Each structure stands twice: as C-alpha cells, then as structure tokens.
C-alpha cells in the first residue's frame, strides 16, 4: 500500500475509533451485570422453608463472568440480617446447603448432575441455559429483545418448598 493510502486509512480509523469512544451519558449495564443483579434480587424475593441457616449461601460456578460480578454485588451485604457468602464451584455434597445455585450456560455439562444432587432440597436453581425449565430447573434467565427476563417454572419451585413473592412473579414470565 502506498504511504498516501496508509495515511488516509489511519485518518479514517482514528476518526471512527475516537468518535465512537465517547462514553454514552446514560448508565448502561451489560448482560452479565444484569444477570448478576437478578441473582442478587432473588435472595430477597424468594422464601425458604424454616429453619433459617446462620448465613445466606450463594453457589455458582466459575467460567462465567456472572460469578465475578455477583461476588462484588454481595460483598458486605446481608439478607434478613444474615451475612451472604458466595461459594464458587461447590462440591456435590455442599450443594444442598446452598440457598441459590446458579448454573451458567458455560457449565451445561454439570446441569444434570447438579440438579440430581439437590433434588428434594429447598435450593433455588437459576440458569441461562435455553431449555433449563424443561430440564427440571426453576428460574431461567432469558435474553430477548435486548432485555433480560426471568422465566419461572412454578411447579419445580414449589416442589422444593420455596415460594416466590408476587412482586417477582409480576416481573417474570411463567413457564408452561
């Protein structure tokens, strides 16, 4: 390429890059952050059967950016006066102690095993796997039309003796 063309190319490039680099004024969140925020909210809008454990335990798997954001969101927070703790990559025998388990789409391979271990325990299962609710899961996070929405499978939720607040139900879709 000639020096002239190179200069033109660089000029166009700088113009494009620097124009588009101006941060947009409105607060924006990406998919990861919104999914983590939903998870965080579920702790307040779901009721677990008594007796309450001394701490609120979130369980999630690595290899998803959601876990990292979630750990920053819950840092120092409390649910009904109970401190929140995050357990990353829980062992199978630890799974039934979790209040919420997040199985990200990146870890689809462990889905069946995980659901098998927590079967019959009051643990809320959340995932962004596309057919999660058909596979025995409770809350699926779906991205449609640039919005994240929870899809709740009520039968799977009530089977685990959990109850969903009406406020959360109003902001969610109910799975058939």
């Amino acid at each position, binding site marked *: 390429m000639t020096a002239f063309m190179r200069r033109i190319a660089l000029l166009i490039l700088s113009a494009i*890059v620097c124009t*588009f*680099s101006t941060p947009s004024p409105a607060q924006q969140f*990406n*998919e990861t952050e919104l999914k983590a*925020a939903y998870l965080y909210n579920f702790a307040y809008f779901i009721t677990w059967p008594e007796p309450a454990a001394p701490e609120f335990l979130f369980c999630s798997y690595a*290899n998803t950016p959601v876990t990292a954001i979630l750990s920053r969101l819950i840092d120092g927070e409390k649910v009904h006066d109970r401190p929140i703790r995050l357990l990353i990559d829980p062992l199978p025998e630890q799974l039934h102690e979790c209040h919420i388990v997040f199985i990200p789409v*990146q870890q689809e391979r462990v889905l069946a095993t995980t659901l098998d271990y927590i079967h019959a325990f009051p643990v809320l299962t959340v995932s962004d796997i596309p057919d999660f609710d058909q*596979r025995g899961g409770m809350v699926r996070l779906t991205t449609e039309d640039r919005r994240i*929405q929870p899809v709740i499978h009520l039968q799977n939720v009530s089977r685990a003796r959990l109850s969903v607040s009406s406020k959360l139900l109003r902001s969610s879709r109910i799975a058939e």
Partner: protein
Amino acid sequence: MIGDIRSILLLCAAFSQTRQVHAGDESLDRLKTLSLQELTATTVSLAAKSQQTLQEAAAAAYVISNEEIRRSGMQSIPEILRKVPGLEVARVDANQWAITSRGFNGAFANKLLVMVDGRTVYDPFNSGVYWNEQDYPLEDIDRIEVIRGPGATMWGSNAVNGVINIVTRTAQESQGTLVSAGASHEEPGFGTLRYGGQLNPDLHYRVYGKYNHRDDFHFSDGSKASDNLDLGRAGFRSDWTPNAQETLTLQGDYFNGTMQQTLTGADAAMPDRMQKQGGNLLLRWQRTLANGNRVQIRSYFDHATRQQMRLDHRRDTFDFDVQHSFHWRSHATTWGAGYRFNSDQLTQKLALLTFDQARRDLHLFNLFAQDEWRPFGDAWRLIYGGKLEHNDFTGFELQPTARLLWSPDQQHSVWAAVSRAVRVPSRVEHDLNLLYNFAPGVTTNIRGGDSFKSETALSYELGYRFFPNRSFNLDTTLFYCDYARLSTTEPQTPIIGVGGVLIPYQIANMAQGETYGWETALNWRASEFWRLQGSYSLFGMAIHKDPQSLDSAAAIAEGNSPRQRFNLSAYINLPNQLEFDSHWYYTDRLANGVSAYHRLDLRLGWQPSLHLELAAGVQNLLDNRHLEFIPPQDNPVLSSEMERNYYLKATLRF
C-alpha cells in the same frame, strides 16, 4: 500498519478507561439499587452472544452448541459438522475431508466459506479449506454456526452455498486448568492442555496446547493407506473488558505438523508427505454505543507454509475490517468496509507444474451495508443489502440480498430470500500451467488465465419454522439455486510436434447449472432426561454445458453429492451421573461410485465428580469400514475408508 492500529486502539481504549476508572464501583452500587421493574426494563448494552435467536433468522441457520459437541463423541471439527442438515461431510482419507453445503463437493469445495472467530480459513490459492489444519480444543469452542445458502452480503465472496463460523469461548469463560486425553483405534493418542487465568478482574487469558496423532486408514482392498497425521498446536486468547460497553480481544494460534496422502500417479500410487505450519494473530475491538448501536474493528494476520511433493506454498494474509450497526426509526442498519492483502510464494518442484507468477500479491477491498426494516411492527421484517467488492482478478463484484421474515405469532415464522453470490477465481484457475503425460506421445497442458471470470449463483430460498411449545421445534427450508459461468476445462486445437501431440486445455466458464433441495431439522425435548434431534435433506443438481463447450468433467459435480441424508441423535441422562448418547447418520449413494452408508455412533459418559469426566464410545459400529468420497480427476488423491473406531477419553478440570 498493524502497529499503528494497535496504538490507536489501545490509546482510545485507555482513554475511555481512565474516564471510567472510578465508575466501576459506582455502577455496581447503582446496579444493586435497581428494582425488579427497573431490571426488567433495562436494555442490555453488550450481549455476550450477538447471535439472533433461531426464530429471528431469515436464513437457513443451524447452531451446534458446546454441549452438543461434547456429547457427539467426535474429536475433530469436520466430523462434528456431520449432523448439520444439508451439509455434505465426507471423509476422503484419515486426515482429509470433502465438506460443502448444497452441492459442488470436493476435497477443496470452493463454494463454502469457513471462518474461525471471524478469520477466514478459506484459502484463495485453490479456493478451499485445508480441513486438516483446522482444529481447536473442542472444550473451548462455544458454538459452530452454520448458514446454508448464500451469505455473501455479510461475509463476502465465496460464501456462495454456505458459511461456517467457528466461535471460541471468551477467556473469561474458560478459566482454570483443563486436561483431556484419550486414545482410539484411529487416533492412538490425542490430548489437550489448557490453562485460563486472570491478570486483573477485567483482563482474562487462556493458553492451550493440543496434540493429535492419527493412524493410517485402509484402502478398499485392505492394504494400508499412507495418510497418517501428526499435528501439534498451541495458542492463546485474552479478553479485556475495561467497562460494560467495551471488549478488546487478542488471540493467536500456531500449528506444526506432518500429514500424508496417497497420490494417484501415472503408473502407481505414491505416498506424499506434507509438512505444514502456520499461525495467526487477531485483534478485535467492540464497543456498544447508546441505544445498542455498536462498532467493531477487527484485524488479523495469518501465515501458512505447506511443503508437498509437487509444490511448496507459502501464504501471508493481512485483513482489516470495520463494522458499525445502528438503529434509526424502525430500521437496524449494519455497514462496514474491509481490506485484505494476500501474498503468496509458490516454489515449483516439478518441471511439469508451474504458475504464471511464482509470487503474487492480491488486494481485496469491500464495502457493504445491510438494513433490517420493520415497517409494520415486529411481525414483518425486510432485510436487504449488498456488498461491493473489488478483487485483482475480476474487478468489481456486487453481491446483493433481499430477505423477508413474517412471524404472525410466537409459534410460526416464514421467511423468503433472493440473493446473488459469486465465487472469485482462485490462484490456480488464474495462473496454472500444468503439463501431464496423458499417454505415450500425448501430453496435455492445462492452463488458467486472465479470461476466467467469477462463477455466479442466484439463489431463492423459502423457510418455515414451527415452535408449538418450548420443547419442540421444526425448521425447514426449500431452495433453488441458479449457477452461471461455472468452471470448465476446454480442449483447444492440438499442437503436433516432433515429440508427439500436445493438447492445450484452457480453464473457462462454459457451464451453467441448478441445484434444488429440501432441508429440515427438528429438536424435541421429550422429557427432563431425554432429548431427540433429527435432520433430513433432499438434494438434486443438474449441470449444463454451453453448446460450444467440449469439457468432459463439468458434470462430475452431479455425482459428488448424495441425494438424501439424515441424522437422528438421542441424548439420554441416566441415574448416577451417566449419559448415553446415540447418533445415527445416513448418506445416500454417490453417482460416482460410492455406496450408501449408515453410521451408528454410541457414547457412554460418566461424571463421577464435577471435575472429572470419562467417556467411552464406538463410532461407525455397523461397518468394518466404508468409502465416503472419491475425489474428482483434478485432485489426484486416493481415498481410503472410514473404519470402525473405539475410543476412551478422560477430561479433568480444576
């Protein structure tokens, strides 16, 4: 140039980083205080996967997920593609495949464009894909997107019959150590080692190494073929997400290996040992602007050298492209521009095979725009656009498309499309000069030339999708495609000399043709533990030579594609963390002499803990071995037979 680009990108990225450095915690505090209603109303700035949902695509699209790759039991990318409806996948020998979509198959099928993370692996030298060089740790492939039919408006020339895009996971999605190793009858040893880590919460990376050894197959007479492969590769990927709107990805790979093939010579078959190495480096910057508008800049460098008995080939490619998507009124527009520089060096090893120029530099420019317009709400979408390209062989090429999608409700959608795509001449078609001793005293001379034009295709598609509920979906497509200026080899007036007769052949565009077919795929989750997937395709083609054409080979393409193919896969989860998967593939006979074959694969997987996975299986259970493809005359590779194969594999993650 690359240095300049990188400095601009880093500078701008760093600039926006400094302005937002304190915003991180504040934005998290803000996120925490969002009410449920606000959460539902907030739009996503940067979607992790930009892919549209299947229902929204106005094209014959199919996606193979990471989980389907894992449960296929396949150990190579080309084999994984077998399940895609309408895609023809045939094994030529132990390390070569003939893969195409909608006809014109060959070991270097020239109408299918293949990309890895947006980097084209379609080689302009011979217009094809070296499938035996394409590999990746399968655990780190996020998905393989396949679009059948033309995709030239978005992806450029040579995306005539289809586009395959292999998309790898981000570094953040592949953290930790992964060790996988296995052995099979066909592949006595294969192994992958990957480590993913983070330098800071916004900057993740992974590095990997992979090694494969594939054994020789056998010919139909039972004798051993010379077609083994030894291939090692290593690579890395790093993703930097300084804020919610931006990502910067740098990735690269290197491979080095030897592979053999058996060539059919004038008098005897001879083994040909190929030595190959190559590498690439890719930089991609994406930024989301207000209202979900986005801009992407991508640049890569790709190098390959291939040493063979007949020819040494070295190629360097530099590519740079910019894409910008924005919304206005009821429109969503994407436009962009790109430049590709391709330089090759051919070293002749036989006096009989020469090229017009041993070294050639080719420049390719393109400009494209595509608009999605929803004039009456969401039920109707009109997608139209075009790509204008300039290449050094045929000049300007225009590749337009118009697509209409109608989704009357949540359960049905219908789409129709008309598109034009071109396949530009390869280096071989432009510059080849091959002498071949046809018989004692008779020599043929095949020559390429400047008069060879692009092959063109005008394609008409009609698709229907049915989603009665979330556990079942059906996707079906009808297509008809009209080809013009197809490649032929025209004999010229023989030259009678002292040593005998010389028959010159000129590569020309003296044929037309049409293809038509029906492709259908269904997916049914029968229960929580049981999932079924099936596909069926019916295909037909006819090639017609111009009246003045004397070509004898153009119609061979008709014999290289099966009329029918189907696949049925069942995925079953058993108690005790066991998985049982079965895959049944059927391919109809090929008119050129390959018999129809069934292939049954079974896999048993066990995950005793979340860190360990064991799998055992058998491929091609029903058959000792079978032939899948016979390369046409112009590719003198002797094909060998696909054998029954038992495998064991262990994967450890920690």
